[in-house]
């Protein structure tokens, strides 16, 4: 049997007195085990304090966040209805428009449309919001819709996380956005320059087909869903 190389005395690992494996990982210094009650109390106290702090900060931040959202929405309504004199918000309840929300319903998340009126009090059209998943995440869109003429007035993307430089052209490409002006419903997306000239065609953005198609889809789906409601409301003379 071959002799193992001699190890210098000071390098030799002595077996631990406690019987631990020689050369094994060094034993961490013994800690007295902490009682479960103490562990739970510590984490519960920390969690409670964290919750309290977050609630306080939320109380301060939330009014500001909501005010900003409301401002963005107001500006967007002005834009897609092309400067209405006044705006009236209606809640959509059971297929009918109502000026007052259902009791107990959150007015922020409730489905609603915004009717723009011109200086003579004549309706210009409705501002309608919609959302659907695009290429990266949900795309939030608002558009103006003239229900009596079945035409889209204008479109604006409120929020999207589409790829910068490509998908975000649905917000930044002015010719794509302009393509929605006075387009007849329902819309049809066509490849840029390949349309037949029909007034329901919208040129899609090259390189952002999915994002463009999503925007067109959102508008069509919202019109399909809301057109009967809006026409019924117009029929009532309201």
């Amino acid at each position: 049997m071959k002799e193992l190389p001699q190890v210098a005395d000071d390098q030799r690992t002595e077996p631990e007195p406690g019987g631990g494996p020689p050369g094994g990982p060094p034993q961490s210094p013994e800690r007295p085990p902490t009682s479960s009650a103490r562990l739970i109390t510590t984490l519960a106290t920390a969690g409670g304090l964290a919750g309290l702090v977050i609630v306080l900060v939320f109380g301060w931040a939330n009014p500001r966040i909501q005010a900003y959202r409301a401002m963005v929405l107001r500006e967007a309504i002005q834009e897609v209805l092309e400067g209405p004199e006044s705006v009236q918000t209606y809640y959509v309840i059971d297929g009918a428009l109502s000026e007052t929300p259902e009791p107990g319903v959150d007015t922020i998340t409730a489905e609603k449309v915004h009717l723009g009126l011109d200086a003579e009090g004549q309706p210009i059209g409705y501002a309608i919001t919609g959302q659907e998943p695009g290429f990266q995440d949900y795309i939030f869109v608002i558009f103006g819709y003239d229900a009596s003429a079945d035409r889209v007035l204008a479109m604006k993307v409120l929020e999207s996380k589409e790829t910068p430089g490509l998908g975000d052209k649905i917000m930044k490409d002015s010719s794509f956005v302009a393509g929605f002006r006075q387009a007849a419903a329902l819309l049809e997306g066509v490849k840029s320059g390949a349309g037949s000239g029909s007034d329901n065609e919208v040129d899609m953005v090259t390189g952002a087909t999915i994002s463009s198609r999503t925007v067109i889809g959102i508008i069509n789906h919202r019109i399909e869903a809301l057109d009967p409601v809006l026409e019924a409301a117009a029929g009532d003379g309201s």
Partner: protein
Amino acid sequence: MRETTPQQDLIRGIWKENPVLVQLLGLCPALAVTNTVANSLAMGIATFFVLVGSSLLVSTFKKVIPHEVRISAYILIIATFVTIADLVLAAVVPLIHKELGAFIALIVVNCMILGRQEAFASKRPIGRSLLDAVGTGTGFMIALLMMGTFREILGNGSILGISLFGDGFEPWVIFILPPGGFLTLGFILLAFGWWQERKSESVRVRQWPHGVATPSREEAA
């Protein structure tokens, strides 16, 4: 435990042990949100705030937090600061908050922050932990700003939205897309590595005439 001076605690994280450029920590935000200078700055400030706040609390309560649940407690502390940063950004700079999106929430799992708590703040006095957090946070911000400046100049032809080259410039869109993050980080790491190697080489050359030659194997035997 290696003994350090307060100055070393502060300066170490800024350059010599820069979290992004040397330790390669916190790369997720460094790659994802550095497409403009403004985003880099906002992410840098948010991370700085979370790091300093958590280090302060972890160092203050290090004796109270039982060893068994320390990681959970650190995460809880970090997550609280991240939520605060998220809400404050949404209230104060909503446009930037929209750009940074989910990456603010993801500061919770930034290894750089948890790493400083476990390796430093949980073992050192409060003052030293603060210095260390300030240094590391500044280093992180510097790295993010380097990447953001590089990417915004090449990818958009601007700095902080101010156009630099006029209409004649065709932006290299790839630099503001995700691959641009990897390319930029690669270039910066390459430059950093080259610079460090040159520095260590010049030290070797200078030492050569007076250096103590290491005994070779035969001589030692």
